[in-house]
């Protein structure tokens, strides 16, 4: 019987199956962050211990200040970080704290440190945990009650999702990135379009993506309703994993790689749903509304307000139907988040920004401190600062605004993040999602704009 990668990953972790078909699954890696305080409180409330502290890792990211880290000024933020530090210390969990040179956003740090591997089951109390599926892991976001359950038992009850394959074949055009692929399919299928499904991304365009690109693609699965995203591990994956601090060492690597290579869906495997996308149909894409599926090519115009949902979104966004997206003025830019703040993202943005000045203010927050160090070694920090952008520390920052990095009411931000929900970047903030290179283009022109002409002769 031919099996999908989902089938293989699922059965490799299934401890038992309940009467109604839900599975009790073994968790290989459990990542926690400051927001996990409710779960630790629940654990303490019942006097339980962490079952596998050696498989549990803590990261300071959601509330991490991006500036002034030595003395955290805001008492509420200081308290959130202290709570995680206390819980990690008390339960013997390795913590990547605020002053650790390895600190970063949990979905950047996990793969970067070699904590995330092909074939693992990874959970975290954050919906963008689907990111880790890019390495061929079964990775999904969970709520606080489930975090407490994983802490206490190192397992999780989960009904198996249906298998869906999104094939993207062909070659992506210039300045068309994994972010554009994701926004394209989400616009096509809707924010609930892949609900109840695990998405396996396949096709030649996916194979051609770097690990960073695959992570961006899997990261955004949840914005189309899919709790799981995954890519078959291949040589790109193995090369990425090899030599990372927590990954298998030289002696163990070959055996591990042999197991990982067997994870690919079998040739005759049947998916519950198949979606086919031609890479040539995808343009640099931006969102115009308040939901990630409200996206269109930069060459398009703001759609007409045919239904009340669109009317409300345009009203919130302060946009008129029929106006070309290219040319809409922005007040600021943000380059960061678990979606698009890896080294490749910073390089792409720097390619466009080099030798140019930004017309609007903006922040560049690397996905991790190692990414920051690498960018500085390559001189990218100077490209950003010479353009007039602020080069700051790593954390979730202005993607979710919990650390105080927010967009002011009514202000419009070109953002490399994942959610353009109302108020996501701050109360009344107007968010346009796009790729890092499109954020760079918006910085240079002060408007939403097509990055392609600005990249001519630069790549």
């Amino acid at each position, binding site marked *: 019987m031919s099996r999908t990668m989902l089938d293989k990953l699922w059965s490799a972790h299934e401890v038992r199956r309940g009467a109604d078909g839900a599975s009790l699954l073994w968790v290989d890696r459990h990542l926690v962050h400051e927001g996990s305080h409710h779960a630790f409180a629940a654990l303490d409330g019942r006097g339980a211990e962490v079952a596998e502290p050696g498989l549990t890792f803590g990261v300071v990211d959601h509330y991490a200040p991006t500036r002034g880290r030595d003395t955290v000024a805001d008492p509420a933020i200081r308290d959130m970080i202290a709570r995680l530090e206390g819980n990690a210390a008390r339960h013997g969990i390795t913590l990547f704290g605020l002053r650790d040179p390895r600190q970063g956003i949990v979905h950047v740090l996990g793969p970067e440190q070699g904590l995330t591997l092909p074939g693992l089951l990874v959970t975290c109390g954050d919906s963008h945990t689907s990111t880790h599926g890019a390495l061929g892991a079964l990775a999904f976001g969970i709520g606080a009650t489930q975090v407490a359950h994983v802490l206490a038992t190192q397992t999780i009850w989960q009904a198996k999702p249906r298998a869906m394959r999104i094939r993207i074949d062909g070659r992506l055009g210039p300045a068309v990135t994994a972010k554009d692929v994701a926004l394209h399919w989400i616009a096509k299928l809707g924010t609930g379009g892949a609900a109840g499904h695990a998405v396996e991304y396949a096709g030649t365009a996916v194979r051609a993506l770097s690990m960073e690109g695959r992570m961006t693609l899997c990261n955004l699965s949840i914005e189309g309703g899919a709790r799981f995203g995954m890519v078959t591990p291949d040589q790109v994956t193995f090369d990425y994993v090899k030599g990372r601090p927590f990954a298998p060492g030289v002696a163990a690597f070959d055996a591990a790689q042999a197991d990982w290579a067997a994870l690919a869906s079998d040739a005759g495997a049947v998916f519950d749903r198949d979606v086919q996308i031609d890479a040539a149909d995808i343009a640099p894409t931006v969102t115009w509304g308040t939901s990630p599926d409200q996206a269109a090519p930069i060459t398009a115009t703001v759609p007409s307000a045919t239904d009340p949902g669109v009317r409300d979104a345009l009203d919130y966004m302060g946009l008129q139907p029929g106006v070309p997206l290219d040319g809409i003025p922005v007040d600021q830019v943000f380059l960061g988040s678990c979606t698009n703040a890896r080294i490749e993202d910073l390089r792409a943005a720097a390619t466009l920004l080099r030798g140019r000045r930004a017309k609007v203010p903006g922040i560049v927050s690397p996905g991790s401190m190692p990414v920051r160090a690498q960018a500085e070694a390559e001189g990218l920090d100077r490209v950003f600062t010479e353009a007039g952008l602020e080069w700051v520390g790593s954390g979730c920052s202005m993607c979710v605004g919990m650390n105080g990095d927010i967009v002011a009411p009514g202000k419009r931000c070109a953002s490399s993040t994942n*959610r353009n929900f109302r108020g996501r970047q701050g109360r009344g903030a107007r968010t346009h999602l796009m790729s890092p290179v499109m954020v760079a283009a918006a910085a240079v022109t002060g408007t939403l704009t097509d990055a392609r002409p600005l990249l001519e002769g630069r790549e």
Partner: protein
Amino acid sequence: MSGWTTHDGQAVALPLGDVDTDQIIPARFMSTPRAAGYGGFLFHDLRDGDADFPLDRHAGCSVLVAGPNFGCGSSREAAVYALVDAGIRVVVAESFADIFAGNAVNNGVLPARVAQTGEILEALRDGPLPALIDLTMARLTIGGTGYSFDLPQTWRDKLINGWDDIDLTRAHTAEIETFRNTRRARAPWAWPSTPEPGPNPAIHPQGERP
């Protein structure tokens, strides 16, 4: 958490689709300890300055009827805490985001998936109507009209019995231990290596140099 079998309350319409958890509770409230109560945070920014917001115009409703894909976005369970603390026990929608639905059940809130939710929203257009929910029958009645809702058996059992997953799983401790040992023998690579001691050099993220 105490279980429940039937619920008798008032249903109110929130005729919006794709209600994300950032709308249900804005992130800035999430550092608050649960004991402080989350009810006041529910739909905070949507309600603020809108005297017509359904939950304010019609106080005391415990059944919320909304558009499709309710609870999409962030996995924050705080969204459910806000609903619970504001007295909501049942949310009716054509569909729910996966993570939200699980979080709801874990807090005793029924995410009732009803195909004819559009019809119910229409019936609630002029204001709240009495609602009766029966978990055993997987039926609900709003304004005298009956509907079936879709709910996995385990979720129904959990809501009725107020079961806690940790207690349920504890019954399988030996099985989990056996699984762990077998996995460790078959896939030793699945356990993290110990990084080289000493100062942690910044590791070079991969990706081709420009």
